């Protein structure tokens, strides 16, 4: 039976070395989080171009979260420091344009933090679900 309840669509960019492994650990430990979260693997959080974030919103994502190694632990030494600056500015700009700030997030999740990964995804999905559909940024033409 189909429950006609609003399900948000969450795109999660995870760096290969920490956060993607953290997500795997959440799986190993069978820590549930909503299936609305779909993970895209990137080598480093610094690979995430603001264009990818906007593209996800354009195609109907309701929330975008970027996960990387904790500052100082980047596999590539400095990648997440650049992520931090880029996303800080991008998120601030989206807020300036009146886009709900709960729709974007950066979270540092290490390979050992399976529980944090699941908890983060639960929390983020809940917050995004509370906002409802992403009407402000999405491209209505592409929505089915």
């Amino acid at each position, binding site marked *: 039976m189909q429950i006609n309840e609003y399900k948000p669509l969450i795109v999660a960019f995870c760096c290969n070395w920490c956060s993607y492994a953290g997500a795997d650990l959440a799986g190993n430990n069978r820590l549930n989080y909503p299936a609305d979260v779909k993970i895209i693997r990137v080598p480093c959080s610094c690979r995430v171009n603001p264009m990818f974030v906007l593209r996800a919103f354009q195609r109907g994502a309701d929330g975008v979260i970027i996960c990387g190694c904790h500052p100082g632990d980047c596999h590539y030494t400095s990648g997440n420091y650049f992520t931090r600056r880029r996303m800080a500015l991008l*998120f601030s*700009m989206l807020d300036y344009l009146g886009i709900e700030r709960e729709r974007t997030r950066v979270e540092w999740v290490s390979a050992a933090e399976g529980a944090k990964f699941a908890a983060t995804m639960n929390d983020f999905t809940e917050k995004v679900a509370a906002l409802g559909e992403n009407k402000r940024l999405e491209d209505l033409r592409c929505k089915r």
Partner: protein
Amino acid sequence: MQKITREQLIDKAVSLLSDGTVECVLGWEKGQFDYDITPAVFNDENELRENFVWNDFCGANFSKYLVSKTRKCNGKMLVFLKPCDTYSFNQLLTEHRFDREKVYAVGIPCEGMADIDKIKAACGDGIISIDASGDKLNVHTLYSDEPISVSAESVFAERCMNCKSKKHVAYDELLGEDGDVIESHRFDEVAEIEAMTPDERFAFWQNELSRCIRCNACRDACPACTCEKCVFDNPNSGVENKAAANSFEEKMFHIIRAFHVAGRCTDCGECSRVCPQHIPLHLLNRKFIKDINSFYGDYQAGAEVGTRAPLVDYTTDDLEPGEVFERGGDNA
């Protein structure tokens, strides 16, 4: 009225041409009206005497033109730079966009440029000619025998009202006197928008950006947008579009454009000057500048050659993206 005269500039250009210092001159060329002035390359004295202009409508920032024009010039090119143009000049040098050796830069003072739309609003249409005397502009129109006089300051372009610097940060030679960096109020308007509710902000920008006709004038005039090929023109970039098909694409274009120049934008204001739809695009760039200043310490792009732009730099204790909203003030 500008303190330096057209004749002084032409004389300078002619002397540099004749002694062989420069091969050509990048200057302002008169158009059909006194206010539609375009950048042009002048090759000799005749061309200069005939078509070169210098008045309150010479807003165009020449720095960007050096990227393509110096490639076509074998010798040196003379360029006249107003104080705000020199910041773009330095920024482009930082980014290795043109060869400093191929440019002879003459810094010229600027008393502020006029905004023709403000003049039209004050004096009506049918403007035949405009001349300046003292701090007044005399506007001759079809519909009035007597010229209408307005104070130059009242019709300043926005960027000149909020002028950030009368100081030249780069030049080979300076005509007239150099000024100082100014404590401007250029971030006040950004702060006003920040203070709105999210709904108000969204409505504000929806109203502004929905007017965009994607003429790309902002991009084409911007001295930071000097890419050989813009991502929006690149079929492989995934975001290629020639015209915005919907409100998302309008926003996407302007967000990405502002992001790409973040930390590199000198706040020269060309984007807003050239926008035919009068979208206050500088408010996007200034938001980034304001954020950069408050998050990572004051940074003026182009103040010096060779500085590291904030987005290609970091410190280990930068603030977290989640903290920007707390830092941004009580604009929830």
